[in-house]
């Protein structure tokens, strides 16, 4: 449905898109992920010519939209866009936001448009807000109305530009729910997002953008679980897990705690799991401090969460001589190890390339 060839975009001296080639077929849901500033939004905005490309061609249903004779406004009517900052028309009610396009552009009658609009509002769960103005709605409500507004134009594809980035975590799910439903109903969509789990669940294909091109693309299983290219792997890991490097014995326990708490919040983990994770880390670090009398005190902690398995994994790697506190009795007491043993499962010790590697999962109950 959309075909992009050799797309490039410069802003003055800065090249944001180098050479982008992609194809989006009808009925596909494409997620576009990647580090900030790599042109994800720019790419999306080029598709409906909100940004003018510097080079390349874009075909929508076979029509080259960059051709001088193309009727761009008309083409845009078939493509909906949902913005990060909602952009609802401030001087119109929610209902009017939905009817203005169909009435003025598609030639529908006011009654027809109104009826369809009410149905759509009902579908996104906001029928009673039909007469409200945008400044009377919450962020999540505004975004849902924005999505409904797109649907009112009966588009063939909807472009989502970071639809939940400006939302309070509590409102993110209500919007994602709507988008999920649309995907289920077969709407063609391209979504730029930072919500990895959502992207993994909902997409047919994922574009990982980096270095001004589509660095890697493939089905979610590939990108999220088995990335082929190095940079992709790094990105996925970074986003999925928390890593903390400790370089000396004067580590700041509370700073580490802060990061762990934030990570748990992000993944909406229960308080007990969080407390267990905190305690495990504290005890591990205490053991290492007590045990390591050698020169370097170097520990890498990694906490990762798998939504599928609903499990929190802790990996602690320390440099130095062979040291496995669970085997030896070199510690003053067994309090720490007892606690660790009782709060975790699948504990494993490995000596890997001159480093001590402990991995375990946080016990659930």
């Amino acid at each position, binding site marked *: 449905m959309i075909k992009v060839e050799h797309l490039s975009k410069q802003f003055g001296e800065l090249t944001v898109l180098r050479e982008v080639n992609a194809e989006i077929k009808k009925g596909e849901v494409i997620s576009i992920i990647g580090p900030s500033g790599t042109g994800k939004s720019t790419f999306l905005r080029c598709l409906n010519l*909100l940004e003018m490309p510097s080079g390349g061609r874009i075909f929508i249903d076979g029509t080259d939209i960059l051709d001088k004779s193309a009727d761009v406004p008309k083409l845009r009517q*078939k493509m909906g866009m949902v913005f990060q900052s909602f952009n609802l028309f401030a001087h119109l009610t929610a209902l009017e936001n939905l009817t203005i396009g169909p009435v003025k552009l598609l030639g529908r009658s006011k009654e027809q448009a109104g009826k369809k609009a009410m149905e759509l509002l009902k579908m996104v769960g906001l029928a009673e807000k039909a007469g409200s103005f945008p400044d009377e709605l919450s962020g999540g409500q505004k975004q849902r109305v924005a999505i409904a507004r797109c649907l009112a134009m009966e588009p063939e594809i909807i472009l989502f530009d970071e639809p939940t980035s400006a939302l309070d975590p509590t409102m993110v799910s209500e919007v994602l729910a709507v988008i999920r439903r649309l995907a289920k109903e077969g709407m063609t969509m391209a979504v730029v997002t930072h919500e990895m789990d959502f992207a993994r669940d909902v997409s047919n294909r994922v574009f990982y953008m980096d270095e001004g091109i589509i660095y890697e693309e493939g089905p979610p299983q590939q990108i999220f679980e088995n990335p082929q290219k190095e940079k992709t792997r790094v990105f996925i890991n970074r986003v999925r897990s928390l890593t903390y490097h400790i370089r000396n014995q004067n580590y700041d326990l509370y700073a580490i705690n802060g990061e762990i708490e934030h990570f748990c919040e992000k993944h909406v983990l229960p308080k007990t799991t969080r407390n267990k994770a905190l305690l495990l880390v504290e005890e591990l670090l205490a053991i290492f401090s007590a045990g390591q009398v050698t020169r370097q005190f170097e520990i890498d902690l990694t906490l990762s969460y798998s939504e599928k398995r609903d499990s929190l994994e802790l990996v602690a790697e320390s440099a130095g001589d062979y040291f496995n506190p669970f085997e030896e009795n070199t510690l003053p007491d067994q309090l720490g190890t007892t606690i660790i043993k009782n709060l975790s499962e699948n504990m494993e010790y490995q000596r890997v390339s001159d480093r001590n590697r402990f991995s375990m999962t946080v016990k659930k109950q």
Partner: protein
Amino acid sequence: MKKAAVLVFICLMMAVIPAGCGKSEKVITKLEDAGEARIGVMTGTTGEQLARARFPNADIKSFDDVMDAVAALKSGQIEAVILAYSNAMNVAKHNPEMWYLPEPVEKEDMAVGVRKGNDELLAAVDKIIAELKGDGTLEDMKRRWFKEDLSPYEQVDLAVPTDGAILKIGVNAAREPFCFTDENGRITGYDGELARRIGIKLGRPVEFSDMKFLALIPALQSGKVDLAISMAPTEERKKSINFSQPVFASAQVMLVKKAPGAKANSGKMASLDDIDGKRVAVYTGTIHDAFVASHYPKAEIMRFDSTADMILALKNRKADVAFLDLTSAKVMLKSNPELGILTDEALTRPLGVGFNKNNPALRERFNNYLKTAGADGTYDEMYRRWFENDPEKAEMPEFKNPETGEEIVLGVAVGDLPYVAYMNGEYVGFDIEMLQRFARHEGLRLKIMTMEFSSLVAALASGKVDMIADGIAITEERQKQIDFSAPYMEFKTAVIALKQNIAAYDGKEAAGTGTSFLPRIAASFHNNIILENRYLLILDGLKTTAVISVLATAFGTMLGGLVCFMRMSRNKALQQPAKVYISILRGTPVLVLLMIIFYVVFASVNIDPIIVAVVAFGMNFAAYVSEMFRTGIEGVDKGQTEAGIAMGFTKAQTFLYIVLPQAVRQILPVYKGEFISLVKMTSVVGYIAVQDLTKASDIIRSRTFDAFFPLVMVAVLYFCISWLLALSLGYVERITDPKARRRQVL
């Protein structure tokens, strides 16, 4: 609604009451009269203490310097000043309307102040004073400095030493003739000379520090000065500083304004030369203006645009004399009995009707007519009607303008009888009758346009009118620009002033206006509004103001939209001219723009000045409107436009349906304010001969010389217009508020 009406009523009452109260200045002829008066004194002087002690019920006002107190006395803010007698004498010399009461408030001595502890200096000064007294120097100084007339002071050359420890003298050099600065900035006067003499005797150079009187004692105490010259020794002061033996005997006296009809000496004018140095009111652009400027350079010339304003200035003592045409003066004097004629032999000039230099034919025709009128007695009849009998009772003969025939435009300034006036809804006067007869004689249609007197010549020269008349004197200056007919009248100048200021009227006082408040208001109302159907003038003016305002706003808004579009375009060829337009129009006063368009742009074009007004105000308004629009449009979030574009609206549709409604909401309040400003600005259209609301009040005032009713009435009407406009725009604001809409729907 009710609250607003009550508020308006209260404001009107507050405006009315001060006008109703007559102006009454208390006149003090003896000390006892000052019991409850407002008395000015200088801070820190003995006068201040005396005033409080002697007049406990009076309102004492303290000033830092003598001239401040005198200025207050002059303007009527206080009724008396207490100060040292030689100061008072000096002030009275220069201000003949003031004099000091012969009975002093208190006698006192003047001495030199010395810091406590500086006994050596004190002894030396005492010795010097004794010497100067003994050899008669002090007496001589008194003679030379405390003079009764205005002749220059006799200076004595004193060689003051240049080496040695400097003797620092503190003085208050604002008290002539004790101590003041001469035209070279040098401290002089009695105290100045005394200080120098002391310096010579002590063999020390002298340095003066001029300060406010109340700062002298602190300066002495802190050692900034060694001597303070001169002050009166009081018990209070002796606590802080020491005094030498008395230098001379003085007294504190009371300075007051002379009563009307007081037998005191100079101050009244007797002849034309007495106007030198006074405030002279003249009519802008008339020969009087030039006459006074060249013959009496010391006179302060005040220019007015109407005779009514000049009379008002005289009555309110803002001017001392006024120059007008003799016959007009006689008419004025009838309704203003407190004014009198100083002289009627100031200036005599012939009068003529003005014609454009390019139209000698019309002039010829008029000159011929004049001869005819002179021959067949018409001229004499007119002269009798307007100049010998009472012009106010004159009846204009009926004239009807022919339906067809060449139209000629006559420009006049609505000044005063007997030349041109506006009564009962029509133009009357000698000049009017003369020119109407001329028109009928020649079969021409006469159209009359009014404007400011000073604009008449310009209007004629630029071709806006064909002839001008209103008692215009033929002068060389004017003849450079326009041609005159043969003289049809001789014009005599009268110089008038308040009778109380004219020596010749001594003893013949005007009857007081002691009528009470309400009847006066009622009479004023009747005079200004009802008489001669003057309210019709106001209604006409109101209509004109409204028409100009509304049309100018509409034109200005549309033009403003266009300019805004150009200003916001990315095309430099459109953007630059728009920017230039905006800055020029915003930087030019509307009046100047108005006159440029009328007199320069449309010079020879016969265009209705109302159209010119609409164009000028519209152009000015457009500059502001375009910037308003731009701010409003730029204030709409960019995301709105993006959403519109993304939905498939064209740029134009996005602007029209999404950006514009939001921008308009933002700017509506400011627009309201600018609209109301425009309405008030239209009050200057009188300058291009449009008879609007303000001009209507001018015309009425020229007949009644009353300031209050015409002005207040017009102000109230402007207020009403603005208020109504604000209400209607407020209504528009409400109905365009989308949220208000919703409340109706649901």
